[in-house]
């Protein structure tokens, strides 16, 4: 068998050599068969990767962190979903992170991570990511790789054309995919046309802290706003959104939203709207949405309900919004690194459409309009068109750019990535993906300075790429070397959940700032015990607070008596360690909750409501030292009417 393979390999090699195509500078024809592909992705044991990739988890609700070029998974960051591994969304401190106007929501659908920028370049401070189902935007701090803020987006539904940042992170933008009545009201679905609105939300980001605040919502016609990207360079100050369902159908969209020959890209001049607001424009609309902020010192999140939001009627701000006709339900909406071109990939169109920002400006100046939609001027397709990439493939979705003036577009139906040239619109190369690619990512993709070394494609279908794992498979991704004229497939790697977009960045912009542990001296948690002297157990009626500490390898206290059935016991656990990578875990039998995983210097709280009399153990869940198995304790639970006094201790018999 092996011999056979070898023979095939040799034959293939021979075939490659005999091709002798001198125009191919690199031996890319071999693809993954080429032995150099292995070298390109090999990160030797103990060595570190060159890039971080932040890959959305889709229906996992989370964000995964990978290394490139190795494709190794480093971390899953819980964002919109409860995460029993660490206790996120289960611990008392993090439950408020998942609070919304609909109450506590344990799950989310995360889509498009984007890295914060300064002067048009990724700065490695934060990652923003959107939740599609119950519209929210989260901010992840890249010092701690933890979710530190989540803001709900009112008047929105299907938060999909999100969460992309402007070139100085002035805004993170969130557009609605589903239009809804604004404000929500009890009306017939048949009243869709005209009554439903599409809210495009501009969320201001505070420069120093990163705190988010909805500056305004633009209430657009009831189309579906699918994806978006900011202008940059000359087009900085504008934001572009693809639309579909300009038919405004509310049923069988599969057919009814594919009728129009052209939908639109909505071009929004947010600087103009800022001016309008500064002059008192816009209306405050009563609303109700959650703003959840996690504090690294108290290790605690707080949730505040906000009661109003500023809304803008686009027709009241002349010059703020224009519609650019774009063929056939465009999906991806991508802006070239120089900000000159806006690419709209009509899902159902044979050609890729590229609009020119310069021509758009010209057409606006000349007031050359082709009509209007609900009072918003429509520019003429021919006037704004820069060019088309013709018959490039089937089912175009998303485009990224390199640093050499090339664009890379994914084609879902024909399952390939196509490289083409900006300006000449000619196709340079195409490579298959396995299979049915959605998004693709190039490091710094949404910025002025993309890094044209690697590109990876995130596929929707895996089939036979890995050993089978039953009917359900992880999605596959493929890494390509794009440094040469032709793309070269280097690596297959599985991803977790369903990745939509991903954002990648050079590791040296992030790794040096990564925190190693939380300082105990900075811990302001109200229930922290910052030394064993501060440990105690306090009863307030049937509520009991246990101030407990961990260090290799014991809990303090580790024997507690005087707890009664019907008590509500809060374990506030502080990890006293002050060293890198020494977490301790906490779990107690019969807990209707997850474990806690407590980082050094951190305090986390878990609630336990014992229902049965007995002596119940708890233990450390993280193998913390050679004496980890000894890290355990007992709690005596007595009947409700018992008069056993509260008592707690540690190591009384140690001589």
């Amino acid at each position, binding site marked *: 068998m092996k011999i056979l393979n070898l023979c095939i390999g040799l034959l293939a090699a021979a075939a490659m050599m005999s091709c002798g195509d001198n125009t191919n500078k690199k031996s890319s024809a071999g693809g993954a068969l080429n032995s150099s592909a292995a070298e390109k992705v090999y990160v030797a044991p103990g060595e570190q990767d060159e890039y971080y990739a932040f890959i959305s988890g889709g229906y996992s609700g989370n964000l995964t962190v990978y290394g490139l070029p190795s494709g190794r998974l480093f971390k899953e960051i819980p964002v919109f979903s409860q995460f029993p591994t660490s206790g996120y969304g289960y611990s008392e401190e993090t439950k408020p992170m998942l609070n919304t106007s609909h109450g506590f929501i344990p799950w989310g659908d995360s889509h498009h991570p984007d890295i914060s920028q300064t002067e048009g370049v990724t700065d490695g401070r934060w990652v923003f990511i959107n939740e599609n189902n119950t519209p929210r935007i989260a901010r992840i701090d890249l010092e701690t790789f933890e979710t530190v803020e989540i803001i709900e987006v009112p008047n929105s539904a299907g938060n999909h054309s999100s969460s992309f940042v402007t070139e100085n992170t002035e805004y993170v933008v969130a557009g609605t995919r589903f239009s809804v009545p604004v404000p929500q009201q009890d009306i017939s679905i048949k009243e869709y046309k005209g009554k439903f609105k599409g809210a495009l939300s501009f969320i201001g980001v505070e420069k120093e802290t990163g705190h988010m605040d909805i500056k305004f919502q633009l209430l657009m016609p009831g189309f579906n706003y699918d994806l978006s990207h900011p202008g940059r360079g000359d087009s900085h100050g504008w934001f572009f959104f693809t639309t579909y369902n300009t038919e405004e159908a509310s049923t069988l969209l599969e057919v009814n939203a594919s009728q129009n020959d052209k939908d639109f890209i909505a071009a929004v001049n947010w600087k103009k709207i800022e001016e309008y607001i500064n002059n008192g424009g816009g209306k405050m609309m009563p609303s109700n949405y959650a703003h959840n902020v996690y504090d690294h010192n108290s290790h605690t999140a707080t949730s505040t309900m906000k009661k109003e939001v500023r809304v803008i009627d686009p027709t009241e701000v002349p010059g703020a919004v224009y519609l650019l006709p774009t063929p056939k339900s465009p999906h991806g909406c991508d802006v070239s690194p120089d900000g000159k071109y806006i690419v709209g990939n009509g899902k159902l169109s044979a050609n890729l459409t590229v609009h020119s920002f310069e021509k758009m400006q010209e057409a606006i100046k000349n007031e050359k309009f082709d009509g209007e939609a609900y009072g918003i001027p429509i520019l003429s397709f021919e006037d704004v068109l820069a060019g088309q990439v013709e018959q490039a493939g089937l089912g175009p979705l998303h485009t990224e750019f390199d640093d050499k003036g090339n664009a890379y577009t994914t084609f879902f139906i024909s399952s390939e990535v196509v490289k083409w040239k900006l300006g000449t619109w000619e196709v340079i190369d195409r490579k298959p993906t396995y299979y049915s690619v959605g998004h693709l990512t190039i490091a710094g993709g949404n910025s002025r300075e993309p890094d044209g070394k690697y590109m990876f494609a995130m596929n929707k279908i895996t089939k036979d790429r890995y050993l089978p794992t039953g009917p359900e498979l992880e999605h596959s991704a493929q890494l390509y070397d794009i440094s040469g004229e032709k793309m070269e497939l280097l690596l297959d790697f599985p991803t977790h959940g369903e990745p939509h977009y991903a954002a990648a960045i050079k590791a040296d912009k992030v790794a040096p700032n990564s925190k190693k*542990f939380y*300082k*105990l*001296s900075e811990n302001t948690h109200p229930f922290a015990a*910052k*030394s*064993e*002297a501060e440990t105690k157990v306090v009863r307030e009626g049937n509520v009991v607070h246990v101030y407990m*500490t961990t*260090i*290799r*390898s*014991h809990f*303090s206290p580790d024997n507690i008596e005087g707890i009664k059935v019907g008590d509500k016991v809060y374990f506030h656990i502080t990890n*006293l*360690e*002050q*060293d890198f990578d*020494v977490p301790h875990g906490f779990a107690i039998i019969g807990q209707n909750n997850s474990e806690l995983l407590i980082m050094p210097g951190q305090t986390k709280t878990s609630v336990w409501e014992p229902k049965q009399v007995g002596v119940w153990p708890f233990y450390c869940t993280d193998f913390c*030292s*050679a*004496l980890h198995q000894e890290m355990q304790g007992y709690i005596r639970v007595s009947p409700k009417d018992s008069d056993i006094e509260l008592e707690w201790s540690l*190591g009384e018999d*140690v*001589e």
Partner: protein
Amino acid sequence: MKNYLKLSVLMLAFAGILVSCGGDNKKEEKKEKITLNQAEPVKKEKKTNKVPASKRVDLDNKGVGPITSVDLPADIDKAMAAKGKDVYEKMCTACHKVDKRFIGPAPKGILERRSPEWVMNMILAPERMVREDPLAKDLLIEFNGSPMANQGLTEEEARQVLEYFRTL
């Protein structure tokens, strides 16, 4: 590692016993297990005349780590010692009680057995010490393999703790 080794030896011994017992009388088997298990460590334990690491006196050994020399003036700096007490109470008491063995040894009288440099290196670079300093290595074993945690003290704080130890 050693613990695992011991464990496997015990398990092997235990398994051997089970097999040889033949299991015709369950009660007897239980008793036998207990007596044999108690006898086992006695057989295995090799008595040495070595002084336990915690009692050994080695004032020349400076240990390994960032500290190569410490000047201890004759008089104790009370203000520095007070700061050291504060640091000690916050960062060390989870494992060290002043005057009795706890998870780790008691600091009282430590400078009669160890050099000031050794003490500070143990505080500042415990991972390196248990790897490279034979005495620290022996201590780790004597204290059940419980590692000295690196609590991230600054050199200044470690020096303050040392001054506090002089007052004990």
